[in-house]
């Protein structure tokens, strides 16, 4: 596995606030990494550092380049949406395509046209005439038409309806993604991308609280739904988190074998959202 993004002891401070606190990780080629964290956890700061939009301490290398100092070179090989709905309102769709075509060597206008032909967006329209959803569709179509080794999406579907969100992720997986490409994505709607991801990374208070491949999760984590006497016995195995669901207790375990919990209740692999809550709240408790 070649490492596309490599971070060693990366930190970023704003005054006394450590937005990213001594973080180390690797993202391999051909992976889809989900970066999950609450607001203010440092997700966006970390993404900005990866994209060369902000300077940071420590060693950070993206495609073998220093993102902040070799930003222009890096941006030829990656594409990203820093935030949705930031297309300038005065520009026309075809002007925007002209501009991207002339500054980005990896942009395929034909591909963008093909993607746009599936929408109601007309080339002569000005951005101000488009709905918020259409602006996002346009932005996503443009970056999807860039032949990039790394695609970074920060909350790409914020404010879009569910039909478009499903369609977008479907297209991302079917049309865009292949073994050569790597995707780094953040979103609050974790459930929607759960099946898409190959890797997941949780970040809280600037620190990584979990970094694992999706395949490894069932081995490391297990959720037990139980009640009464059994719950009491299960607690002795040191669950990392406990919550109530319909009068029953749900206990989350890390590194506890399923055979040890056998017979104590219903076992299953926790979903990412539940696991996230367990890791973040469990650590705080």
């Amino acid at each position, binding site marked *: 596995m070649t490492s596309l993004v490599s971070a060693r002891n990366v930190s970023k401070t*704003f005054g006394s606030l450590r937005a990213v606190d001594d973080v180390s990780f690797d993202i391999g080629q051909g992976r889809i990494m989900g970066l999950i964290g609450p607001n203010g956890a440092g997700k*966006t*700061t970390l993404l*900005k550092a990866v*994209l060369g*939009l*902000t*300077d940071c301490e420590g060693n950070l290398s993206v495609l073998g380049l220093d993102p902040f100092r070799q*930003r*222009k*070179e890096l*941006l*030829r090989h990656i*594409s*990203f*949406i*820093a*935030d949705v709905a*930031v*297309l*300038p*309102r*005065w*520009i*026309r769709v075809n*002007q925007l395509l*002209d*501009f*991207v075509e*002339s*500054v*980005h*060597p990896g942009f395929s206008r034909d591909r963008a046209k093909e993607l746009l032909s599936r929408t109601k967006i007309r080339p002569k329209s000005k951005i101000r005439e488009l709905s918020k959803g259409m602006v996002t569709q346009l*932005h996503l179509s443009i970056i999807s038409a860039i032949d990039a080794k790394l695609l970074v999406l920060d909350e790409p579907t914020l404010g879009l309806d569910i039909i478009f969100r499903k369609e977008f992720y479907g297209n991302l997986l079917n049309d865009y993604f292949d073994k050569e490409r790597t995707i780094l994505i953040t979103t609050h709607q974790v459930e929607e991308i759960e099946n898409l991801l190959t890797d997941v990374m949780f970040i809280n208070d600037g620190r990584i609280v979990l970094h694992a491949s999706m395949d490894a999760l069932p081995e490391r984590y297990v959720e037990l739904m139980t009640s009464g006497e059994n719950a009491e016995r299960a607690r002795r195995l040191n669950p990392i988190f406990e919550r109530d669901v319909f009068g029953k207790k749900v206990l989350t375990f890390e590194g506890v074998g399923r055979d040890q919990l056998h017979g104590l209740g219903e076992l299953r692999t926790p979903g990412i959202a539940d696991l996230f809550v367990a890791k973040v709240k469990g650590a705080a408790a």
Partner: protein
Amino acid sequence: MIGNQVALIRRELWEHRSIYVTPIVIALIVSVMTMTGQVLVSTIDKAVDIAILGATNMGEKERSIAMTVLLSGVSSVLILAMWVLTIFYSLDALYAERKDRSILLWRSLPVTDAETVISKLLTALVVIPLVTFAVIAVTHLVVLVLASIWLSVRGANVWHLIWGSAPLVDNWTGTLISMLALPLWLSPFIGWFLFVSAFTKRSPLLVAFLPIVILPMLEKSLVGTTLFFEAFFLRSGTIPLFGGLSTGEILRYDTHGLRIDGEVPSGLLSLLDLSGFFGSPSLWLGLVVCGLFVTAAIYVRRYRDDS
């Protein structure tokens, strides 16, 4: 690098349509005013209308000077508008993209901050003057055509009186040179405006002009000197391009009435003193100040974190 500049400057023209809309609108107004002026004047006094353009009782040289004055009058209105436009453009150039957050899109593409800021500087220094000049040249032709129609209706020989004595090539060359020289002379202001538009969180106009007004006042009351006043206000009026000739000397009023001084050079080009302009230390000092402000603007765009 050059390909990117072309794309970036084209983007400036898409965004700031006022770069060509403003001069066109003003040119239309000037053309209408010139025409109504001619008609109005000639209804008052039959001799006067011809004094403006192609008077028969003038020699070739006087007619040519009168023509230069008319053409330059049209130019100066548009050049004044150009300077106002340049101020507003420079103050908006790096501010609007932050206000509408589109900077996040621009910075997601493989274009450096230096390339972007330089494209905006080039727009202010070169593109706006060239666009305005094109409008001026067309306006000159329109004004002369309108005058020709008016005069030929009154039975004058316009080919001889107007087109024969209109020093167009001379006037256009001189105008173009002055228009490219003026922004260079005022470049420290342009650099300052770009810098303000890169850093200010609100009202760039106010932030840019407050120090220009307050610093000279402070200096005068605290130190008693007028260095800032001279740098800010005298600079705009004393461009060392015109060999010290003031337009007041062209028209003479004496016992023979109002007349044009026959001693002044008839063309605009011969008034220009390029070696004086490029030899002026003030020009080069100004360009250095402009360069410092532009570097600061690039630095701010690169290192600021707006999140």
